[in-house]
C-alpha cells in the first residue's frame, strides 16, 4: 500500500543508528562527565577536536552539502534525525552553526573548523574562545570578547561589543536546534522513567505513584508532539512549521528536564546527576536563533492570512 510515508525510511534509520553508535562510543556518560569536570572555572576547552573531526568524517556537518561540493547530498529530514541523537547525548559544541557553515567556512564541512554563530541574541556568543570562525561576522578574525560565567558548564559564553546578523540561517538553525531539544526531551523522559521504576519509597517504586506517572505521561506527550512537528517541518521546510517546531521542542525540552528533576527528588538537585545539564542546555537553546515571541508573531501573521 502506498500513501503518506511519514515514518523514517530504513536508510534514514540506519543513518540515525550510525550517529547514535558513534556518540555512544565516543561521548558516553564518562566522557560527558569528564568534559563537565574539565570545563571548570579555569575554562578548559569544551569541544573535543578529535571527535569533531570524526563527526565531520561521518558526514554530520556536510550532510546537506551537495555531493558535487564534497557533501553527502542529503536533506533536512536526515539532518533532524542525527541532530536528535546529538541532543540525546548532550554533545557540546556549536553543532548547528558548524553544520550551517559547511560550504561557507573552509574546514567546517570536514569538521576541521569549529564555527560558532551570533545566534544567542543579546550580546552573547557561545564557544567564542574555541571557534575558528563566527557565522554572521563581517570580517576576520573572529571578534574578541569578554568571557562571562555560563549557566551551562558545557556552553562557555563571551560578551561581545558588536553583534552580527544571522537572519539568513535563522529558519534552518531553528529547526536543527529544535531537533537537539527533542533528543534531550526524549532522553530526560527515559531517565525519569528508569529512575521511577528503580527508586522505592513507601515500599513501592515511586513510578507506581500516580503523581509521578502523570508527570512522565506529560513528558511523553510533549516530546511526541514536538518530535512529529520537527519531522514535519523537516519535510516541508515551511517557515510556520519550523517556528511551531521550535516552540514545541523548546517547551518539551525545558519542561521535560524540570519534570525529570522533580522525579529525581533530592538527587535531581545534585551536580552529579545529569538532569541539570539537560535543563541548562535546554535553556541555552530555547533562545537560540530567535525568541519565542518572534516565532509566535510569525505564526500569528500566518494565521491571520490563512483562509482569508
Amino acid at each position, binding site marked *: 500500500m502506498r500513501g503518506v510515508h511519514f515514518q523514517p525510511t530504513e536508510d534514514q534509520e540506519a543513518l540515525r543508528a550510525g550517529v547514535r553508535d558513534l556518540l555512544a562510543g565516543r561521548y558516553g556518560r564518562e566522557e560527558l562527565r569528564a568534559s563537565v569536570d574539565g570545563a571548570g572555572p579555569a575554562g578548559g576547552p569544551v569541544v573535543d577536536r578529535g571527535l569533531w573531526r570524526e563527526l565531520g568524517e561521518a558526514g554530520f556537518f556536510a550532510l546537506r552539502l551537495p555531493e558535487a561540493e564534497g557533501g553527502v547530498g542529503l536533506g533536512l529530514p536526515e539532518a533532524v534525525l542525527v541532530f536528535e541523537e546529538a541532543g540525546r547525548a548532550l554533545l557540546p559544541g556549536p553543532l548547528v552553526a558548524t553544520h550551517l557553515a559547511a560550504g561557507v567556512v573552509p574546514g567546517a564541512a570536514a569538521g576541521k573548523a569549529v564555527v560558532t554563530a551570533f545566534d544567542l541574541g543579546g550580546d552573547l556568543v557561545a564557544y567564542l574562545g574555541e571557534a575558528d570562525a563566527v557565522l554572521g561576522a563581517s570580517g576576520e578574525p573572529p571578534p574578541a570578547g569578554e568571557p562571562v560565567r555560563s549557566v551551562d558548564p558545557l556552553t562557555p559564553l563571551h560578551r561581545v561589543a558588536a553583534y552580527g546578523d544571522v537572519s539568513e540561517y535563522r529558519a534552518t538553525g531553528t529547526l536543527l536546534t529544535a531537533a537537539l531539544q527533542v533528543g534531550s526531551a526524549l532522553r530526560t523522559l527515559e531517565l525519569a522513567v528508569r529512575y521511577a521504576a528503580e527508586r522505592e519509597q513507601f515500599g513501592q517504586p515511586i513510578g507506581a505513584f500516580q503523581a509521578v506517572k502523570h508527570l512522565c505521561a506529560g513528558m511523553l506527550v510533549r516530546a511526541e*508532539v514536538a518530535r512529529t512537528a520537527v519531522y514535519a517541518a523537516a519535510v516541508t521546510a515551511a517557515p510556520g512549521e519550523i517556528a511551531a517546531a521550535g516552540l514545541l521542542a523548546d517547551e518539551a525540552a525545558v519542561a521535560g528536564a524540570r519534570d525529570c528533576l522533580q522525579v529525581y527528588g533530592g538527587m535531581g538537585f545534585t551536580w552529579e546527576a545529569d538532569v541539570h545539564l539537560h535543563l541548562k542546555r535546554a535553556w541555552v537553546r530555547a533562545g537560540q536563533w530567535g525568541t519565542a515571541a518572534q516565532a509566535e508573531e510569525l505564526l500569528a501573521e500566518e494565521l491571520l492570512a490563512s483562509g482569508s
Partner: protein
Amino acid sequence: MDLTYTEEEQDFRARLRAWLAVVLPGLPARPSPDDWPGRRAYDAGWQRRLYDAGYAGLHWPLDAGGRGATPTQHLIFLEETERAGAPYVGANFVGLLHAGPTIAAEGTAEQRARWLPPVLRGDEVWCQGFSEPDAGSDLASLRTRAVRDGDAYVVTGSKVWTSHAEVADWCELLVRTDPDAPKHRGITWLAMPMDAPGVTVRPLRTLAGSAEFAEVFLDEVRVPVANRVGAENDGWRVTMVTLSFERGTAFVGEVVACRRTLGELARRAKENGSWDDPVLRRRMGRLYGEFGALWRLTQWNVSEAMGVPPVRAKSRTRGSSGGVPGTGGSVFKLAYSHARQELYDTAAQVLGAGSLVLDEEWTLDRLSSLSYTIAAGTSQIQRNIVAERILGLPKGR
C-alpha cells in the same frame, strides 16, 4: 519521511472536492441543537448522500459493506469534508465509529448483514450503553445484569451519559453475565433495540443547556441471544477491539475544524482591535502552531497504520525510531483535548464581555469543550494508560 500524496490519492481528493462543491450548497438548513428529531433527520440525510456517492464506510472492509479505502484516503476524506464545512457524523457517531466497526470485526455474517447496511445508509442510529452510575472510569465494574432465559437475555440495570439515546434505534450494551468471574471476564456485548419493552430513556440536561445524553433504565428487557456479538463473557475484549478503532481517527476532522475556527477568531480579533494585544496575538499564534503539529501527529499515526490492521497498529511502537514507544490514541487525545479547550478560552478573551452572551458563536462551543477531557476516557485515565502501557511504569497498589 515523506508527506506527499500519490497520484491516485490526489485524484481521490480532487473528485471528493468536486462532489462536495456540488452537494453542500443543496443541503437543508441545520436544525437547532434542541430539535432532536430534526438533528437525526439532518444527520441521516447527510449519511444517505455519502452512501449514494460511494463515500459511506470508506475505510471499512469490503465484506462489511465498506469501500476498503486506505487509511490515507480516509484521512483525505476527513480533511476535505471538514475543510468544506460538511456536516459532522453527529447522531451516526456510535454506529459509524464504534458499534459498526465492532460488528464488522467480531460479528457473524448474518449480524453484519442485518446491522451494517442501515448504519452506512443512515437509516438506523446507534447509541453506546457502557457507562453506569457506579461504573465510569472503572468501566469493567459495570453491574447491569443479564440472565439467560431460553433464547433471550433478561437485562436489568441502568446506564448513564448515553449520548443520542433519545433518537437511537439500537444500543451497544455492555452487561454482566457472570457476576462471579473476575470483573473483566464476566461481561457480554449485546445489541439492544431501544424500543424493546422495559427500556426507559430520561434525557439529562448538560451544562450547555441541551439534552445531549440521557439515563437509560432497563427493567427486565428481553434481548435475543442472537443479538450477542462475540462469545458470552468475552464482551470486554470485543469492546476493546473497537475502542482502538475509535481513537485513531475520531478527531481528525476536528483538528482541521480547530484550525479553521482559529482563523475566524483571528479575523474577529482584527476587527474588534484585540489583535493589537501582543499577549493575545501570540497566544493565538502558538495555538495555530500546536494545531498544525496535531494535524501532523494524525498523519504520523495514519502513516504508521498503513498496511497494518488497525487493531495491531494501536499497540505498535515507534521502536527503532528513537526508543520511545508511542500509541496514537492516548497521546493524541491528551494533547488535542487540552489544545481545544485552550482555543475556546482564547476565543473568550477575543470576545471580552461578549463571551458571556450565550448566542455568541463561540460561547456554546466553549461550554461543549469542557467535556473533552472527560468523555471517552478522562485525561487522568489517558495518562495512566500512557504511563503504564507505553512507558511501562508499575501499577500502584
